[in-house]
């Protein structure tokens, strides 16, 4: 058994699901012949053929609509947005059709939308955003944000088998940076179960996606100074494992909420609010949020580095919280 990358894990999960269930199919721009802008579907066309691996016209509304219509009849589409940013073009379909149809009149709408997301790769204002918070506020949608190779595979398989529209935010920065050996066999990571990425006593960092990786590095630095950081990797934002958050806060009594999305209106506000409401008595310090600057995502390295939460920012917030 050899280590595979985060994006290979995504590919493996889809590959296995395509083999397991004839209702599963993939669609999106350049996913066939080209194997996808990030090669997540490389080789699929040769193996599964068109239209099961479907190079679509450049039409996000149609991609979403076709996914929905086929899902309502029992197909299980995996739609790729070439970059997460382009989901803004198919927005109405997701938030008004896919999200609401089951509640309104019953049909289930089992579809996965893959969203290559996030910065750190100098993508600029339209190729590096973290749009998850547009969707965490839409009842009817599920939102997952894998932070590890293991979860990339396990959450994808769970997403494909889920009977609801699932937005799968895969972080581009992690694509080839993370490697891991995965167990054999058919296993999934259930949606809605957070993970203690690192156990610690002094402070809880509640985070997800790429920031799990960055928080981990900072935690190691701080360990040298005797600060013992617990990291909660939410894995899925909707459903949210509120109990895992509260449990950690009840233990450490101090908390930093961290994400790569911009701060105002990011999902961190929701996390803070739940802690402030349901673990209030356990708090020994203000709940600090660390997130990107409230600007569009800038392109130049100097700007993107100033925009994103850097290790120094994370470290400063943790130190301030611990010493409060």
């Amino acid at each position, binding site marked *: 058994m050899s280590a595979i990358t985060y994006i290979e894990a995504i590919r493996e999960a889809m590959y296995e699901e395509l083999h397991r269930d004839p209702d599963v*199919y993939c669609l999106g721009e350049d996913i066939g012949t080209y194997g996808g802008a990030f090669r997540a579907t490389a080789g699929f066309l040769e193996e599964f053929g068109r*239209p*099961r691996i479907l190079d*679509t*016209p450049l*039409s*996000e*509304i*149609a991609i*979403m*609509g*076709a*996914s*929905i*219509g*086929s*899902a*309502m*009849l*029992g*197909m299980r589409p995996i739609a790729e947005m070439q970059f997460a940013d382009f989901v803004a073009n198919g927005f*109405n*379909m997701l938030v*008004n*059709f896919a999200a*609401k*149809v*089951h*509640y*309104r*009149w*019953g*049909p*289930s*709408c*089992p579809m996965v939308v893959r969203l290559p997301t996030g910065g750190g790769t100098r993508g600029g204002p339209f190729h590096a955003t973290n749009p998850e918070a547009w969707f965490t506020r839409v*009842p*009817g949608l*599920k939102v997952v944000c894998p932070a590890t190779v293991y979860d990339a595979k396990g959450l994808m398989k769970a997403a494909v088998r889920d*009977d*609801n529209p699932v937005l799968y935010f895969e972080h581009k920065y992690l694509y080839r940076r993370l490697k891991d050996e995965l167990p054999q066999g058919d296993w999934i990571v259930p949606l809605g179960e957070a993970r203690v990425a690192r156990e610690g006593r002094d402070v809880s960092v509640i985070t997800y996606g790429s920031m799990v990786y960055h928080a981990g590095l900072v935690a190691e630095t701080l360990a040298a100074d005797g600060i013992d950081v617990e990291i909660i990797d939410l894995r899925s934002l909707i459903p949210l494992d509120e109990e895992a958050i509260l449990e950690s806060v009840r233990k450490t009594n101090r908390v930093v909420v961290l994400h790569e999305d911009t701060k105002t209106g990011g999902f961190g506000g929701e996390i803070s609010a739940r802690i402030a409401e349901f673990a209030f008595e356990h708090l020994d310090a203000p709940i600090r949020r660390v997130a990107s600057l409230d600007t569009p995502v800038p392109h130049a390295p100097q700007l993107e580095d100033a925009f994103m939460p850097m290790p120094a920012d994370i470290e400063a917030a943790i130190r301030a919280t611990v010493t409060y």
Partner: protein
Amino acid sequence: MPARSKRPSKNKDLAGYEPDFLLGLYRDMLRTRALDSRIEALYKQGKLVAGCYSSRGQEGCSVGSTAAMRDDDIVGPMIRNLGSMLRHGLPMKFVLSNYLGRATGPTKGRDGSSHFGSLEHNVFGPISMLGALIPVCAGAALSFQMRGEDRVALTWIGDGGSNVGDFHEGLNFAGVLKLPLVLILENNKWAYSTPIEYQTAAKDFACRAEGYGIASDTVDGNDIIAVYEVTKKAVERARNGDGPTLIEADTMRMRGHAIHDDAKYVPKEQLEYWETRDPVETFRARLKKAKLLDDDGHDSIMAAVKQELETATDEATAMPLPTGDRDTELGDVYA
């Protein structure tokens, strides 16, 4: 696009059709109109949860096109396609109970009017955002193609709604894949208060099909037989793997946009003209002329329709109202 309407179609001889089929069409138009009027009446009695949109004057288009479908085909009716819902097998009480916001209706009170579907009846419900059903029905058609089923999907759009991006993306997508999809564009001359010349400068809407490489047709939308035939042709094309068709139906919205709208902006002469082309009355005259229907015949159909409507109204009204239990509501957001 000129506000003027096309000439009515030359009524074809009805000789080639089974009388039962023709009378069935007639009955379904009457059912549609009766239900439509009942909904209006219930509104005026303050019994509806909210407003309502009338299908009046467009019954022929809905019933005639849906008559060309098989039961296992998918139809995706919009707000003025009540006739399609009834023709495709949805019981009247289903529709009424939704207007009345009943707990045991198709949306359990969660959505209103004809904003619902039923997979059991192969009916897709729309969302309010016009045009969205086009790519969604293309998706239904894609599933047929992938599974090797010879089913077809049919949906509708208005002269207004056809200017939404979803129309473009949905039809073009269907064109590339030659999906079994039929779209009927009901050009009823108005979109709310907006006349077609403010919607598009195109000479008509059917010509848009060329931009997607798909077939097109135009039809007198008030001639139920013409609509049936043109849809039939399109459905056969779709079933044979020859791809989608865009059909422009020439018709007229005979009421305001919704019941609150007195439609003062519609010229009286336009309404008067179209009154002479009423799909129910003109078809009735044809049936009479072909000696398929006399006054007694009409009356007995009408009596059955009334009976059905009364029963449906009673049953729908007897259905319970939702209790507003928060856990139940939260529990139904996810499948």
